[in-house]
């Protein structure tokens, strides 16, 4: 009697929707528990369970009733950092560390990746606010590299990353004379293991309040 009863997707993050779909033949009444009540013989309905929930569809006619159940698993959503909101009393260094994020590069590259452009755009907006509040402070952009290229070449590469970062911020309207650059090449890694997980963290421009 029940052709199908599904939930797509069967696993959702809390707050997201799962769609129940069903098709029943030869039933007089069709109902779904969990407060959905009587429904048509075939149809679909979006549900937003806040925890893992089983839905039972009951189809009845003169001969009796049959049931079919599906479960929607609900996971906790990734905890999103609330946007840091600087307190009015924050000093320059605190504001920089709250609002300005490092950007990352591909191996042997100083071109901006898509994610770095997005981060830098946010950084630029924040910097205009911060520099407006602290007219006498400057920001140092440190260029870093992973351990694989030679130390000498990486000194040049880190410098290129820092300079390209400065140029990008300047194009977005940040005052160039508030920005300094320094290359540490591969001399100051933030992560010291020899794997891509670590290397990708070290290929970065890091922002330091002065």
């Amino acid at each position, binding site marked *: 009697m029940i052709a199908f009863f599904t939930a797509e997707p069967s696993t959702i993050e809390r707050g997201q929707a799962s769609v129940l779909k069903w098709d029943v033949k030869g039933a007089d009444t069709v109902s779904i528990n969990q407060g959905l009540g009587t429904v048509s013989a075939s149809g679909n309905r979006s549900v937003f369970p806040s925890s893992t929930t089983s839905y039972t569809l009951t189809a009845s006619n003169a001969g009796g009733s049959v049931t079919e159940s599906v479960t929607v698993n609900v996971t906790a959503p990734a905890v999103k950092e609330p946007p840091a909101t600087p307190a009015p009393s924050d000093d320059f260094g605190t504001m920089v560390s709250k609002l300005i994020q490092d950007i990352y590069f591909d191996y042997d590259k100083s071109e901006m990746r898509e994610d770095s452009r997005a981060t830098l755009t946010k950084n630029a907006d924040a910097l205009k606010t911060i520099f407006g509040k602290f007219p006498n402070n400057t920001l140092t952009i440190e260029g870093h590299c992973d351990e*694989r290229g030679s130390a*000498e070449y990486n000194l*040049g590469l880190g*410098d290129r990353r820092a300079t390209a970062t400065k140029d990008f911020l300047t194009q977005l309207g940040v005052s160039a004379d508030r920005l300094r650059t320094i290359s540490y090449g591969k001399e100051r890694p933030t992560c010291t293991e020899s794997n891509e997980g670590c290397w990708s963290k070290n290929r970065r421009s890091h922002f330091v309040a002065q």
Partner: protein
Amino acid sequence: MKNFILPCLFAVAASLAYGQQGADIVGRIVGGQKAVIAIPDFRGAGRAGNFAATFNETLFSDIDQAGVFKMAPKSMFPLNVPQRPEDFRKPLQYDPNNRTRAPWLLDWSEPPVSSDFLAFGYTAEQDNQMVLFGWLFNVRQPEVSGAQVIGKIYHGSLDEEGARKVAHEFATDILRQFGVESLAGSKIYFVSNRSGSKEIWVMDYDGSNQKQFTFYKNLVTMPNVSPDGTRLAFTSFAGGAPQIVVHSLETGRKIPFYNQRASMNATAAFTPDGKQIIYSSTASGWAQLYRANSDGSKLERLTNTRSIEVEPKINPKTGNEILFVSGRGGPQQIYKMNIDGTDVTRLTTGEGEASNPSWNPQGSHMAFAWTRGYSPGNWNIFIMDVATREYVQLTQGAGRNENPTWAPDGRHVVFSSNRSGSMQIWSMLADGTQLRQLTSAGVNEKPVWTK
């Protein structure tokens, strides 16, 4: 005195495991099959005996490390060791089964010693001084009268230092007979973090006598020494961004050097006459190569690309060709150009990544680091004949091996390797043999070998 030049005596190339091309290159550098030398322990008479052990260790080590000779095993030596030429007495009836009655040339040239040369003599106390009576004999000669190659007296103080001094001088004279400059007295400058931050350190060529040279309590790295051995240039973060600093090696003091306005001035090297410095600067926005007087004045830009270019090294013989590292064609490779920036050619094949070019003193070969055949970051030491571009790989994937530089004798290479678990300084003969670890405390890298 007769000079023995190895390539003339022993024309047979050593059979090395690099393929014919490689064997040719290192054969030309280290000189093929080696002569055998026997160095029995010298006796010390009187108070000189207190320092005999130091003398014998130093003499043996100097000759062994030079890589010119095969050292005859001491356990095979005859019981009667000569101390003076007069001790050689020809047996009346030579009996190969019983020749211990008197030291004779054949005792040393025949099996089991099978030596070509014998160094012998003794030290003694004379007027409160150490005196060394040293001889070198060619034991392949038929008569004692024709065997002497060196017979000389050396003077030193009556202490450990004096014992080392006379041993070094005798070793230098022996090696000179074979056209080889002794490394005794040569120094290796290097970078060590053992004081808490990277600073320049210095040690004797054999790893002894390690001392801190700079005290900036900051990041100090990438040393280079002037050809006359009087000045040291390096890259320092003491003022913030990386800048070039020059020190006198005679006074230890800082010498003025004008750094052009740039976020990075680094990887300085001296011209053969010591009058100019070439280096890499980001004044244009990219790390590019410049030439200046040794005080930084009279700047001239040598390269003009939008790529990263570092580590310029001028041919020490011609003073013209510059080796350098560039990313102009993609991953970092080694290029060559004239000192005015013309005639740029790539030397490495474009495979992998290449770095750390270093001219040999003869200006014919370069040692360098290359990841060819390995994934990025896995450096090995190579040597290339710059004219023919034939190359040979000297290290074979044991750890990361970087920053090779030549010894003043043009036969040895010092480099850094983490094959022992941490980055340390190693030396080897330029055919990849005679590996020696010279440091062990802290992290040590970027060695430069000077006279």
